C-alpha cells in the first residue's frame, strides 16, 4: 500500500502538488490540504498535458478576472496574484478538472465577480436580457413614431382657416404685431363686422 502511494505520488508530482492528489484520490476526513476536490468534487475530465494544457490554460484563464487589476483577465496581467491564479488553473487542468470545475472553484472563494463572463443564472439573467429588452422597447417606440408621422404626412389635417378659433393659437404675443394683425383682419373682413369683432376678441 505504501509502495502504491509512493509510486502514485512520484508519477503525478510534476502534474500536481501531492497534498491535493491524496485528497482527490482518497478523500480523507481530515481535510489538511487546499484540494479543489473538497469544493468541486473529483476531477471529471481528462488530465491535460503539453500543448493542449497550454491552450486550455490560456483559454480558461482568459475567463477569470484578475482581482487586483481593473477589468483584466489573469492571462493579461503580470501581477503576482494573476501569476498564482494562472498556476492554479494550469494545475487543475493538468489534474483533470473540467473548465466548469475550475470556474466553480474560483467562484467559490472569490464570488461571481471573478468571472469575466457572468453566468446566466439568477439576477445575472438581467444582464443578458436587458439589452434585448431595451432593443425591443426602442424598436417599438421607433415603429410607433414612424407610423404616426407617416399617417400625418399622408392625410394632412383639415383646418378651416376662416374660422378664427382655429387660428387663435397663432395669435402673436407682441402687442404691436397684434394691432397690425387686427388691422389686416379688419381690412380683409370689411364686409362682415361680426367676424371682425370676433377676431378682435380672440
Amino acid at each position, binding site marked *: 500500500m505504501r509502495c502504491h502511494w509512493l509510486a502514485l505520488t512520484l508519477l503525478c508530482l510534476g502534474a500536481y502538488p501531492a497534498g491535493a492528489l491524496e485528497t482527490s484520490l482518497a478523500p480523507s476526513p*481530515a481535510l489538511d490540504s487546499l484540494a479543489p476536490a473538497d469544493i468541486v468534487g473529483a476531477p471529471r475530465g481528462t488530465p491535460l498535458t503539453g500543448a493542449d494544457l497550454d491552450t486550455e490554460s490560456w483559454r480558461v484563464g482568459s475567463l477569470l478576472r484578475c482581482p487586483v487589476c481593473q477589468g483584466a483577465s489573469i492571462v493579461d496581467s503580470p501581477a503576482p496574484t494573476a501569476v*498564482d491564479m494562472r498556476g492554479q488553473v494550469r494545475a487543475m487542468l493538468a489534474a483533470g478538472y473540467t473548465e466548469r470545475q475550475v470556474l466553480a472553484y474560483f467562484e467559490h*472563494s472569490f464570488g461571481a465577480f471573478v468571472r469575466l463572463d457572468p453566468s446566466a443564472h439568477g439576477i445575472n439573467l438581467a444582464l443578458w436580457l436587458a439589452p434585448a429588452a431595451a432593443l425591443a422597447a426602442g424598436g417599438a417606440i421607433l415603429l410607433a413614431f414612424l407610423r404616426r408621422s407617416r399617417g400625418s404626412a399622408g392625410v394632412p389635417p383639415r383646418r378651416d382657416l376662416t374660422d378664427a378659433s382655429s387660428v387663435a393659437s397663432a395669435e402673436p404675443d407682441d402687442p404691436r404685431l397684434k394691432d397690425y394683425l387686427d388691422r389686416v383682419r379688419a381690412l380683409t373682413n370689411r364686409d362682415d363686422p361680426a367676424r371682425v369683432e370676433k377676431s378682435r376678441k380672440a
Partner: protein
Amino acid sequence: MNRRVLLVGLAVALPLVVLLVASLSRDPTRIDSPLIGRAAPAFRLISLDGGDPLTLQSLRGRAVVVNFWATWCVPCVAEHAALVQAAQSSGTRVAFVGVVYQDQDSEVRAFLRQHGASYPMVMDPDGRAAIAYGVYGVPETFFISADGIIVNKQTGTLTAARLEQLVAELARPAERGPS
C-alpha cells in the same frame, strides 16, 4: 404629448440617477466574501520557523484568526503590533496564524526580528491558500469559529480596539455574528 414624454423620461431616468447617487457612497473595492458562513478551506502550510507544516485541522476546537499579510504592505505593517498584542492577550482561547503572501521568507524573518512575533507564521509560496480564501489583497483577516466556519472577514488595517472587539465576538460563540 410633451408632458407624457417628460413623465416617461423621468420614470426611466430617475431610478437610474437614484441608483448612481446611492452607489457614489459605496466603496467600489469592497466585495463581500462568499466564504462567510462556509467552512474555512483547510490548509497545510510550511512554517516559517522550519518546524512541521501547520494545518488548520490541528487548531480545530479553538477559534482561529488567519491574517494574510506581507512585509511590503504598509497597512499590514501598521496592524502588526495590534495582532501581536491580541494574540498574546487572548491566550489559548483563540489561535492566530499569519499567512505570508507574495514575500520572501528572509524578508519576513528580518521583519519579525525587528517588530516581534507572538503567533505562528506560515508561507504560501504559490498562493494556493490565498486563492482558496479568495484574497483580493493584503491585509485580509479571516475569523474562523471553533467549529471551522468563517464568520467574518476584514479587509485593510485593523486597529487594536477593533481587533479586540472582533476577537471577543469570535470567542463568544453565542453572540457571534458577522459585523
